[in-house]
């Protein structure tokens, strides 16, 4: 995981001038350059295709030759479609914006660690949203959640929860552009010569752009405050300039404004939901190329399950042997064992 591979940023609280944002997991683990993003996705896709090809072969030799796997771009398209659907679901449940934005972030982060050919974005989306209700402190019961979503059982959501949490590296806290925009909105109301009449309209328009930005990679590349200012600039360029000047009165052309153009381009270019027809085609192909190990009932799935069972059995047997030996030594409490490492998933305290 890149999350663990980046040793770079100093984490000590005494490090001078590290802002709160720079100390966040979002900054430390989830910011990429555009090139890094493209590279990560391509590498993930290549690895997934070769792993799934192998799974096909073990299921039925020769069966992978005429499978057309998804490309990284196609995977991304599908993810984007379901990121867009989060917003519909949130409207239905009347979840606050924070829940929606967090779920979208979780989806995007999840697919920087996983492939859609293993985990279909529809299921991941439902789980990411449920998890987001909890991490943002707006929990609802699983039953209430699934009973409002057609053809969804509680287990559909719960089965993936752990995987999603793990893929996120348990980095649950997210800093959102809509919060930054709220801050800008508070600031611009007190600008000395702000054109008061269209402030509200500008804010509303900017918020629409922030929502559109959730369909893009912006949050994986830029800081939330940069995205918010770009959105304000899309809504009203003079207002964005006025705000920047008020923050940096000594500098004629505040550098923050220079960053905005690529963000604005990205939002305008990628900020709308994908063509349904194009996605339908991808989804149709996905049915044929998804990982058989994840399809209940396939030979590959059964094989993998059996292997896991066998390993667990072996572990249990080993443990039973240990205890038996301890009993024979005449110490039912197994004090001999106390000094030894505890089995990592000791089943005895599971219930």
């Amino acid at each position, binding site marked *: 995981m890149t999350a663990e591979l980046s040793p770079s940023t100093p984490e000590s609280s005494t490090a001078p001038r590290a802002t709160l944002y720079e100390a966040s997991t979002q900054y430390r683990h989830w910011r990429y350059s555009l090139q890094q993003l493209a590279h990560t996705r391509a590498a993930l896709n290549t690895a997934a295709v070769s792993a799934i090809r192998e799974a096909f072969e073990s299921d039925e030799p020769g069966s992978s030759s005429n499978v057309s796997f998804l490309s990284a771009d196609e995977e991304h398209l599908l993810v984007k479609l379901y990121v867009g659907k989060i917003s519909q679901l949130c409207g239905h449940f009347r979840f606050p914006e924070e829940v929606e934005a967090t779920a979208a972030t979780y989806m995007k982060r999840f697919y920087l660690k996983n492939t859609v050919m293993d985990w279909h974005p529809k299921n991941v989306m439902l789980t990411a949203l449920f998890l987001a209700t909890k*991490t943002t402190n707006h*929990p609802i019961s699983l039953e209430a959640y699934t009973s409002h979503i057609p053809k969804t059982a509680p287990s559909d959501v719960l089965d993936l929860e752990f995987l999603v949490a793990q893929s996120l590296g348990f980095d649950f806290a997210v800093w959102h552009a809509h919060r930054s925009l709220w801050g800008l909105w508070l600031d611009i109301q007190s600008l000395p010569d702000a054109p008061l009449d269209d402030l509200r309209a500008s804010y509303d328009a900017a918020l629409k752009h922030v929502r559109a930005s959730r369909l893009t990679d912006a949050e994986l590349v830029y800081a939330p405050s940069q995205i918010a200012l770009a959105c304000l600039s899309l809504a009203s360029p003079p207002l964005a300039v006025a705000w920047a000047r008020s923050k940096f009165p000594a500098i004629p052309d505040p550098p923050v404004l220079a960053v905005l153009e690529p963000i604005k381009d990205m939002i305008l270019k990628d900020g709308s939901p994908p063509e349904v027809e194009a996605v339908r085609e991808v989804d149709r192909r996905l049915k044929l190329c998804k990982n058989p190990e994840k399809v209940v009932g396939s030979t590959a799935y059964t094989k993998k399950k059996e292997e896991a069972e066998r390993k667990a059995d072996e572990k249990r047997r080993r443990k039973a042997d240990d205890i038996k030996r301890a009993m024979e030594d005449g110490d039912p409490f197994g004090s001999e064992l106390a000094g030894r490492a505890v089995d990592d998933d000791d089943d005895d305290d599971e219930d």
Partner: protein
Amino acid sequence: MDAVEKANAERQRRWAKDQKIGEGTYAVVYRGREVATGRKVAIKKIKVGQFKDGLDMSAIREVKYLRELKHQNVIELLDVFSSKTNLNLVLEFLDTDLELVIKDRSLVFLPADIKSWMAMTFRGLEFCHRNFILHRDLKPNNLLIASDGQLKLADFGLARDFADPGYKMTCQVITRWYRPPELLFGCRYYSTAVDIWSVGCIFAELMLRTPYLPGESDMDQLKTTFRALGTPTEEDWPGHTKLPDYVPLGQFPKTPLRDLFTAASADCLNLLSKCLLYEPRRRISAKDALDHPYFFALPYPTHPSKLPKPIPKRTSSLPFEELDGNTEPNSTGPGVKANPPNKLKRKHSDEGMIERSKSIARKLDFSQ
């Protein structure tokens, strides 16, 4: 194996569990170590499978906030991994906690010692508040103490981000003896001031060596508070009679803090009184507290390594942290409740497996 599974397995291998040191309804705590370095750690295994709503809220809160907070006076979350359906939090290992220190009658506290603990508490809390996080369960046994004497805020199972003004929060937080009157009166809109009240109670407890406001019920908590600090007037605390659960509790006179805290310096009592102001908006902030003259006056705070500490037994007494979750296992949704104050959160067993197994087997539920 998936990349994610693989990464998890790798992380799991970095840590070894050595010995179970405590068990509660919501977690099992092990003493463990980092395999590569032998560094001692505490591994808190949270049982997830049993919750019908999946990952439970205390676990989520704890992970969410500790992932973000890194400060000398906040417990460090070193790693998170899963084993089967369990969530494992790898935390830095801390020897003891402030409650044990307070209760150890063989230890003598100097004013400089108390100042040192208070400074570390305020530093940790200021960092949380600076990060927009309310702790909401400060009490001596959540202030853990490292072998070098550093005090660290722990147990973030009830923590949350500040809400926007006008956003309702639950008032069922903070262990009763440390709960501020606004929460007892059912206030649903509150701020960092709730944590400051708790620190005030801890401050007093350090001087008294016994809990300052030990109420026996929520109602009695208010009475105990008013008996100690006087019934608030409209001037002390404008608008408090309009709070949702307000009830008149009779008139208690104000007695000067000096009467009870006979040995304390004027600075010390001044800071204490500012932590225990009824009007939450007037209560001192963690940041201002750190700038209070108390911390700059003689005697200077004791160096953490020189602070009094319980003498470890043959195998050191084992701190048990946050064993009982705040979630009711039988509730219909992922709600929270504050722990009743007399609920045993920590057990301290003697050496020996038999003794330990016995005490672990005991259910630690004293809910009323």
